[in-house]
């Protein structure tokens, strides 16, 4: 029998046809492949969070193979000599085993922890980008809400994970968490007893946190992330204004192949940075902290950075206790305000900001073009005000370390934080507002009068003036409208004075080689300035 020749080249096509006949994926798949994404560095910040979440899942699964979520008391007998013979919980002992008796376990633990910090940091940085550019406006309010929830759910994921080793530091944090629950008026003691199954610390909290940390919270995170990404797909990404870009289109690259390949490469880079940090920077050395014992504490006890703002607000809170003289008397402890009320307000503000702003501006249209921060001074001001508030709280969360290392009085640090928290945010708002206005004005001036050429001309009457290169073809003033995008302010951005030297990120200016004859502004804008570009920072 004659062997049929096997056509290798036809295999993918045939396979694709076979799949499509059954599942009908060709059209949706093509649509997916043909999705245009605008390209700008700031659009990659969210990906850092996404990719570190993937690393968290990978390393986290590894850790669950060795971690034992139990508070039963054991006597440690592992490799780490300085703790041998010490009674401790099984959870802590297994964490030590991961660090010292599982080959490569320590780097996994450290990568997991660094990835968690990176996840939260990238969420915040991404959130700032979205906020300052107005990307949260209609139709993307839902995605903003989901993003904010991701921060708060990530916060819970971080705190539960931080508590799992049951070491001296995290146990102190857990103790504070119990005190926070206890401080809630009316139901506080019932909430605490329900969570800890009786008095702190009980014997069950670690197993409960474990199931929350490895199942409930990641499940929620995955669900939220999926919806978040799904919405980015269906709503299509926002873009910066620019030539050819309108509210009704997306200018950029199709998702495949180039964009997706870059994403894949970026994932590897994020993973690589986490691996480097996990190997080079020691994080959370639980073996130094010892097992959690209610009477053990360390100077400079802090939570991870994303919880530190709560620690800071607690430290700054004055000792205002409210007593309610009914019956035997009831108390609202000072702890309640900075740890329950403040985060509650922050959650509410962060969730509903898009609606508040829309209402304030009476702007209910859809926006797909981003705004430069300078063009919306009040929002930028509010954002900087919020960041200032957050940074002061976070710094106050570490004020004892700062006091110790910079030799400042601890009490002075507390007072500086209290006063700074009241004074600096409004000041930051005002300063930002003025800077925004100044930048706006400068843009308008350049549009009206042209770019400063650095050429000084002497007028017949003896005055000196600087020659400006108008941006428009005519010689008129104020002919160009501001388009919401970078206004060229240097001559070589107009293509004058020779080509720019290619730098790593930005073109580097080349000094003028030959003097240009005065009185004759030398340039015509180069024609390619008019072309549609892919949205990188240089116009």
């Amino acid at each position: 029998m004659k062997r049929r020749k096997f056509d290798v080249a036809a295999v993918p096509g045939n396979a694709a046809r076979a799949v499509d006949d059954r599942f009908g994926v060709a059209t949706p798949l093509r649509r997916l492949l043909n999705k245009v994404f605008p390209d700008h560095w700031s659009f990659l910040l969210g990906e850092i969070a996404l990719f570190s979440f993937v690393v968290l899942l990978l390393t986290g699964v590894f850790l669950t193979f060795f971690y034992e979520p139990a508070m039963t008391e054991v006597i440690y007998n592992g490799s780490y000599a300085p703790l041998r013979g010490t009674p401790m919980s099984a959870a802590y002992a297994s964490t030590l085993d991961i660090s010292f008796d599982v080959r490569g376990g320590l780097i996994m633990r450290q990568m997991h922890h660094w990835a968690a910090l990176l996840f939260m940091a990238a969420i915040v940085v991404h959130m700032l980008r979205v906020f300052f550019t107005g990307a949260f406006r209609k139709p993307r309010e839902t995605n903003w809400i989901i993003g904010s929830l991701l921060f708060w759910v990530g916060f819970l994921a971080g705190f539960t994970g931080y508590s799992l080793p049951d070491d001296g530091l995290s146990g102190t944090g857990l103790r504070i968490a119990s005190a926070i629950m206890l401080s809630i008026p009316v139901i506080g003691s019932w909430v605490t007893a329900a969570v800890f199954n009786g008095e702190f610390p009980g014997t069950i909290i670690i197993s409960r946190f474990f199931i929350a940390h490895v199942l409930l919270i990641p499940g929620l995170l995955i669900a939220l992330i999926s919806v978040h990404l799904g919405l980015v797909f269906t709503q299509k990404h926002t873009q910066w204004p620019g030539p050819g870009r309108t509210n009704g289109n997306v200018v950029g690259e199709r998702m495949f192949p180039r964009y997706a390949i870059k994403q894949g490469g970026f994932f590897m880079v994020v993973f690589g940075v986490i691996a480097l940090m996990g190997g080079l920077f020691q994080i959370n050395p639980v073996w130094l902290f010892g097992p959690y014992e209610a009477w053990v504490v360390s100077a400079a006890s802090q939570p991870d950075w994303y919880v530190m703002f709560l620690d800071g607000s607690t430290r700054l809170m004055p000792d205002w206790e409210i007593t309610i003289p009914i019956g035997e008397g009831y108390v609202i402890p000072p702890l309640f305000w900075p740890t329950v009320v403040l985060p509650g307000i922050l959650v509410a503000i962060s969730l509903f900001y898009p609606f508040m702003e829309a209402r304030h501006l009476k702007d209910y249209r859809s926006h797909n073009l981003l705004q430069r921060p300078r063009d919306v001074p009040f929002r930028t001001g509010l954002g900087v005000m919020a960041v200032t508030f957050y940074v002061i709280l976070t710094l106050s969360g570490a004020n004892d370390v700062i006091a110790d290392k910079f030799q400042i009085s601890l009490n002075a640090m507390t007072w500086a934080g209290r006063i700074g928290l009241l004074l600096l945010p409004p000041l930051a708002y005002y300063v930002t507002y003025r800077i925004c206005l100044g930048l706006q004005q400068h843009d308008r001036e350049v549009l009206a009068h042209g770019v400063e050429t650095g050429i000084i001309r002497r007028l017949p009457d003896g005055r000196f003036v600087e020659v400006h290169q108008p941006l428009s073809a005519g010689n008129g003033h104020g002919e160009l409208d501001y388009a919401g995008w970078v206004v060229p302010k240097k001559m070589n951005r107009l293509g004058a004075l020779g080509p720019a030297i290619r730098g790593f990120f930005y073109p580097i200016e080349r000094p003028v080689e030959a003097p240009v004859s005065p009185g004759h502004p030398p340039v015509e804008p180069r024609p390619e300035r008019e072309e549609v570009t892919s949205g990188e920072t240089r116009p």
Partner: protein
Amino acid sequence: MTSDNDRRRGLLARLRGRPGAPGRGRRRLGAAVRLVAALMLAGGAYTVLAPGAAAQENPPLSSAAADGKALFDVSCVSCHGRNAQGVEGRGPSLIGVGAASVEFQVGSGRMPMARQEAQAARKPVVFTRDEIDQLAAYVQELGGGPVVPAGDNLHADGNVAIGGELYRINCSQCHAFSGGGGALSSGKYAPSLRPATDRQIYAAMLSGPQNMPVFGDNQITPEQKADIIAYIQQTLKDDGDPGGLFNLGRYGPSTEGVAIFLVGIVALVFASLWIAGKS
């Protein structure tokens, strides 16, 4: 080790002064020697409890102590006064603080103080080892007090596991889990333990310098002190950091938070600038 002999002599002299002690000592010399040894190990706990009794003594100074007095009269007298009785508002009385206190304060450069401040800080040491021993002998003979046992290595047979447990109960609240120190109220602080020698740690526990509580030998026995010193020297200092080349100062989450922004976020933002850039 003449200075140690001097100290022993000083202690013996004090013991002889106590009613009852000589009689027993004459009958059973061996027992007395053992008692002296035990008391030496037990340091000045007793004298701290009863400094008044010791302050009454005024025996003639040994030669080392006389040298110490000469040094004292040059460098210390302006704050601590004649015969180390203290000057109100400038320096406390040194009667009964013991050689341990001198060894800690002068041996770590804290004394003589450069200026009056919230707390004396560790500085380059002013005196030589011999001079410090002479000063210590002088203060010891003035009014007794706790004494650090001989030898530079006081943790030779310390058990780091026991030491670690004691460290976490008694020391970590101020000096931190990592031994890096921490802030106290109003500008005071617990110093880092990294530059401290065995003898200085021992002396600090015995004498309770500045705001540090006293950990006498009845509370933490000499064996336990050796354990704690072993934990500090071997585990906290020598053991290194298995988790990486950089330990971020072991300040815990505060520097870790700084690192994730300065290293992680900065590196990745640069990467995204490059990825999205045109060049």
